[in-house]
């Protein structure tokens, strides 16, 4: 049966057990792999269809002119543009990853969650 | 759980005030005019035993303003009283004496759409910030933020 909860008993139990808080910079928190973290771009997979730029809610993806052969389903095509993401405008919603037609997604969210930085206009190429 | 109101019940309670139609089993709408809105709300409170105002929605559909009073009660049916206000003189008697929470909702609608609620105890600004320019109502369809008026926040031109 469940022991009745009393504040005093719980306090002294806690005195014995290990504390729950972790000292963040030294000890790290385990991140689930499904976590939506910092955005990243696989340049070799991108076919320049700019679907991600259209669907982005905060319009932080701009298409930049960039010629490159890309191998898609056996054929190699020359793509005209590639996406550039303004990192601190991105709200990490993952819509771009969802609408990207390439197989290993050309634009995807890693699970790096710490993203502070001094430069406001940093851009992920 | 008492069962839902019937359309006939609402029609009988509201006859003479406006047309009644049921969009869904638990949504019954009464279209009425601004003059009769107080009477309609009173009847809803008394005859139809509605005791809880869900929301007062305000819409600017280009031509005129529409106000929808949504009321509900233990019968779990939403009785919504719809009325249209002319664009040039949007005035309607207040419902805050019958429904106390309406005081806050009406002040918010007044801020955003500029509908004047006659008889409201203090129709002061509640939702926009203090130095938002007078009689500029952001939720109106024809409202465009013109660049040279100052809408609060940082005095950018002096800062340059």
């Amino acid at each position, binding site marked *: 049966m*469940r022991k*009745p*909860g*009393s*504040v005093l008993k*719980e*306090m002294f139990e806690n005195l014995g057990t290990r504390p729950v808080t972790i000292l963040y910079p030294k000890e790290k928190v385990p991140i*689930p792999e*499904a*976590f*939506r973290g910092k955005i990243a771009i696989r340049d070799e997979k991108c076919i320049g269809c700019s679907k991600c730029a259209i*669907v*982005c*809610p*905060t319009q932080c993806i701009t298409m930049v002119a960039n010629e490159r052969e890309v191998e898609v389903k056996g054929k190699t095509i020359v793509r005209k543009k590639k996406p550039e993401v303004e990192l601190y405008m991105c*709200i990490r*919603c*993952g*819509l771009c990853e*969802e609408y990207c037609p390439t197989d290993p997604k050309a634009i995807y*969210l890693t699970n790096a969650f710490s993203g502070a930085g001094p*430069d*406001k206009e940093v851009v992920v190429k | *759980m008492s069962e839902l109101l019937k359309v006939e019940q609402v029609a009988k309670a509201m006859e003479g005030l406006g047309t009644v139609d049921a969009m869904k089993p*638990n*949504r019954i709408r009464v279209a009425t005019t601004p003059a009769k809105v107080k009477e309609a709300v009173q009847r809803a409170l008394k005859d139809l035993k509605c*005791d*809880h*105002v*869900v*929301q007062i*929605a*305000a*819409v600017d*559909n280009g031509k005129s303003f529409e106000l*929808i009073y*949504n009321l509900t009660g233990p019968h779990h049916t*939403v009785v919504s009283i719809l009325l249209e206000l002319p664009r040039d003189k949007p005035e309607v008697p207040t419902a805050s004496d019958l*429904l*106390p*929470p309406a*005081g806050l*909702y009406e002040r*918010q609608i007044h801020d*955003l759409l500029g509908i004047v609620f006659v008889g409201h105890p203090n129709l002061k600004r*509640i*939702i*926009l*910030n*203090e130095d938002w320019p007078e009689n500029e109502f*952001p*939720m109106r369809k024809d409202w465009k933020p013109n660049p040279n008026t100052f809408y*609060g*926040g*940082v*005095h*950018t031109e*002096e*800062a*340059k």
Partner: protein
Amino acid sequence: MTEVVVPIGPHHPALKEPVNFKVVADGETIVRLELDVSYNHRGIEKAAEQRDFVRVVPLLERVCGICSHSHTTVFVKGIEEAMKVQIPPRAQYIRTIVAELERIHSHLLWFGVAAHEIGFNTLFMWTWRDREAVQDMLEEMTGNRVNYGINEVGGVRRDLTPEQIQAALKRLPHLEDRIAKYRDMVNKEATMMIRFRGVGKLSKDDILKLGAVGPTARASGVDYDIRKDDPYIAYADVPWQVITDTHGDVYGRTLVRIGELQQSLQIVRYCLENLPAGPIKITTPRAAPRGEILSRYEAPRGELVHFIRTNNTDKVERLDIRTPTLANWTSVAVSLVHQNLADIPVIVAAIDPCLSCTSRITIVNERGKKTGEMTWDELSAHGREFYRKRGRA
């Protein structure tokens, strides 16, 4: 005794969000109170009118930090109703699971903050520690602790893998045991009882007259719960019941919220165990036919209402959001008069105000002081120069 005007807010340690009470106190009891909301109005309704259905969902997720899933679900449910589209049952169940997990972590958060208001920091630490289990579940399922981004018009964006379901089910017993312990503590812990009993008391017809919603109303015996009155997503076929109480004061609201915690855990367990198979979303037409929907939802703080009017385009013609906290303000202001100054934080916290829901614009207003955009190095140069000058002066 001369009357003292005590400003509580907008920046006040007790209120985590900006609301301003100009309180006129005679000694310790409050005589008159001026309420000043909306330091946080962001014009979301106007912004929502310029976004199509795919891009408006992330915007609506950010109406409120804690109940972000509520705002997206109520909107998406309304649009699906307008499009007369039925989403697959698996998506309904996943939405219910995330909704109830959000209610659990919101109530646990509230319970900790309420204990902190009366200075009982131990319970604050314990409840927020147990809340981590719920946050981990949500993080594994939806990819983020708060803004879940799981909803979209026509269904859900992510599926639940069997491992995630097992991991979640393993965490539930511990949570159930902890919440049962908290229920005992509330009834046994002396200072909590003294500070919660009889504070901010509202009778049943007060609540109905003042239009209070959610746990605040249910604590005085009003059994309005949209999940029962107007069932949506998967609440119709999940066995649970509405928790009401008769105390009507902060103590009653605590009991209602703890009861709801236990009910939500049961709902999550039921949904996880018999999650129907099948697709998780359907393709919906781009535009919604002309229509007017009043979409209601039981958010952790009370009844949340989205009035949506669609006009045959892929954008909303008008979105009118009425949040539970806006409905609760009148009842708080009335129940605060003749109370003690020391009780303000407890009574205000009792309705669990969520200010970023209620008003949605934040404009920094530095009247008179000249502030402009400073780049990083300008700021640090300014800092060094300022202190060097001070050093010499």
